[in-house]
């Protein structure tokens, strides 16, 4: 028995995805593929088979390598120098109008991304700005994930009044655009170090994650293994930590990743408006706002910061997409026509 295929789906003769025949075949292949593997191994395998996610992972790794090694970074008391010849805020001798160079002591010249109006090297600035964006992204991710996880799991596990209270708190925060609250907070911490601003932004970006975790916990707490744990005398904390959180990990990881890519855009947008990162710290958003009027005369001041924002956000988004596919048991990879045919043959043999 076969159902009519979804319109325009697949070549004739191939069992369309979604039909009963297709389902059994895919299941057979999938079961064979995951035989004897733990959940973590399955997820890891699916993730590494996701082409978009892997390209995202490679891109973000290369960007980080370039950004941190080129201009160096400060980690507490340690100052790691970079290999690039200019410092981000150092004034370098102007070469003409400051156009990007293509030749010089190095194959790509002394200012591959050009210079700004006062002679600062744009490559060094963009690298420093990329570092800022990535640092802020990681801090926001950690803070928001922690808060969202705690609030979501407490609300979902205890339900009742605690749930009501916490959910009304999240409602309060999502009443306003995150950019508006961010601007108020950013203005408050204008003279503070970057990490403080990032922590504050983390304090307002958790509601989505908290709601999702709560939803997950509401279904998990009705499951038998939670009852089993409770009957065998596990404490509430232990049930949450050992039995429920691991099962909600998929939702948490996926949404933290998506939240982090949104965080990059949030930080740059705030800096663009002037309520985020301010000089002497470098932000890609601030660069774009400073140079937006120079667009027609010095386009390189505008293109490079934008390009790096997009690259960071896009790679993180792709990683998130790959993670979602890897964690979602309903998500099916479409097997190739050859694999389908082989599975069909095997099934026929079994039936005979």
């Amino acid at each position: 028995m076969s159902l009519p295929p979804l319109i325009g789906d697949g070549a004739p003769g191939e069992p369309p995805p979604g039909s009963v025949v297709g389902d059994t075949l895919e299941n057979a292949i999938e079961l064979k593929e995951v035989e004897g593997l733990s959940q973590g191994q399955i997820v890891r395998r699916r993730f590494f088979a996701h082409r978009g996610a892997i390209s995202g992972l490679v891109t973000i790794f290369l960007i980080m390598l370039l950004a941190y090694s080129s201009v160096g970074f400060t980690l507490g008391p340690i100052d790691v120098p970079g290999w690039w010849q200019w410092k981000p805020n150092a004034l370098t001798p102007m070469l003409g109008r400051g156009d990007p160079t293509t030749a010089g002591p190095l194959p790509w010249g002394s200012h591959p991304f050009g210079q700004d109006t006062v002679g600062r090297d744009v490559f060094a600035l963009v690298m420093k700005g990329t570092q800022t964006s990535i640092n802020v992204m990681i801090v926001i991710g950690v803070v928001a994930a922690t808060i969202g996880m705690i609030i979501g799991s407490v609300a979902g596990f205890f339900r009742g009044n605690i749930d009501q209270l916490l959910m009304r708190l999240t409602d309060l925060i999502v009443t306003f655009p995150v950019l508006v609250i961010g601007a108020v907070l950013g203005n408050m911490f204008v003279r503070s170090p970057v990490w403080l601003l990032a922590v504050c932004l983390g304090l307002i970006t958790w509601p989505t994650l908290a709601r999702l975790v709560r939803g997950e916990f509401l279904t998990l707490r009705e499951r038998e293994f939670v009852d089993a744990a409770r009957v065998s005398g596990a404490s509430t904390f232990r049930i949450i930590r050992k039995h429920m959180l691991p099962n909600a990990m998929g939702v948490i990881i996926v949404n933290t990743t998506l939240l982090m890519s949104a965080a990059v855009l949030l930080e740059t947008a705030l800096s663009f408006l002037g309520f985020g990162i301010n000089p002497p710290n470098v932000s890609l958003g601030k660069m774009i706002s400073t140079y937006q009027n120079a667009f027609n005369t010095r386009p390189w001041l505008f293109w490079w910061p934008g390009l790096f924002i997009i690259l960071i956000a896009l790679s993180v988004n792709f990683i998130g997409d790959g993670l979602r596919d890897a964690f979602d048991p309903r998500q099916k990879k479409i097997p190739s026509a050859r694999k389908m045919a082989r599975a069909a043959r095997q099934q026929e043999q079994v039936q005979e």
Partner: protein
Amino acid sequence: MIIFFARRFLTSALVVLTSTLIMYAMVAASIDPLEELRGGNMANKEALMERLSQQLRLDDPVIVRYIDWLKGALGCTYGQCDLGEDWKTHETVTHALSGAIVTTLQLVFAATILAIIGGAAVGIISALRQYSGFDYSITFMSFLMYSLPVFWVAVLAKAFLAIDFNDWLRDPGFGPMTIGLVAAGSGIALGAALGGDWMRRARVFGATAVLVAGLMLYLNVTDFFIRPSQGRAVDLLVITVLGIGLAFLVTLLSTGLRNRKALYSALTSVGIGAALYFPMLEFWNSVDASWLIVILLALVALGVGIAVGYGWGGPDWGRSSRTAAFTAFLMAGLLFVDRLGQSWNAYVHNPRVKGRPLATIGSGTPNLEGSFWIQTIDLMTHIALPSVTLVLISFAGYTRYSRASTLEVLNQDYIRTARSKGLTERTVIMRHAFRNAMLPLASVVPVDLITVIGGALLTETVFGWHGMGKMFVDAMSGNLQDPVMGYILVVGIFAVIANFVADLVYAVLDPRIRVNA
């Protein structure tokens, strides 16, 4: 029901009250009105600071100031609004808000409506063609849009789209290269979207490419971009042809072309629209046009459509009425656009516009004088770029949501039942899948509206719109407590209303959800 409303109203009021209190305290801590004086080097600096502190009551506790602000704000309920003033210019916040709210709402609604229609359409088609090249390209595009910084795109749009378009308008026309590329591109896109085997795709490609190329040649030959109106007789012909095309399209989607009664109803309403072409032009000349009349006429068009459908009768006249009403509405839209087009020349050659219609700064040409039509064109040329940039924020979201929910719905048992009882694919998709797939969007819209209002901060700043977003940004950097709070209050109330409306819409659309107290 009444209890439900009362309860919702009470909780909403509480949300607004608490959120404004928290925001008031945060804003008070965030801004520093004395900043300029402190940095200055006037001789009587101390005295000036002292006086300003007293004027702004900076020494009073925040809660006292909040209660006073709240008293003024509560006055709005009985018509005596007092939201304070900008202490630098002494402009009252209510005055500043009154213009800004309209400006921003125009922008936000234009962007949201565009995003919902476009995003839902693309998302559904993408779901119907799951795992096809079209689906993958749409997925990639939506990821790219998720990752685009709005302010960056806004600056780009301002520099490229507006300036290049205005330059191009001096000597409009498409070269053979452009025509070839656009025709081939739209052919490939439509072929991929409609799907099917290679023969069908080739046919769709050929038809679309020829049609698009022909259209562009027509625009070239008639100098459409200089004179959109070609004389009334030609306009009428073009509108009628477009109307008939729309009638077929609407019927195809709503009932299928085999329902002759529906098709004839749709064509009849196109005929009525065409017959009313000259009378309508006379009508516009004799009355003082305004948005109220336009909206009323749109409603009249819907009514005429329903009547036409009823007139054609048949056992299932409701479907004919729906089809005819939708077609009549679109036909009325065409007539409206045509009337705008007739004023286009006057607009472009207006001494204030100077032949550069697509605006990059501001929400209207200053001191522009002219009829309702000129003003409307002016609004549209100004709203085009900011709303297109704003659409970017939410378009990808709507595409992803409608794709996901369509896929979910297509796997339901009732779709299988519908297919197995022999309904056509069109009926299954449009009547069974489409409506259910659109349900979850109702809960996404308010969240998205709030995001778009946030995005308006960026577009209004880049495009120099004097809306609420710009007012907020300027007030924050100018250390003005009251204007910031005015913005917060309006946005808070707006968010609460949006959520409430979404809940109601959801309850109306989904019979499984009951409004209970």
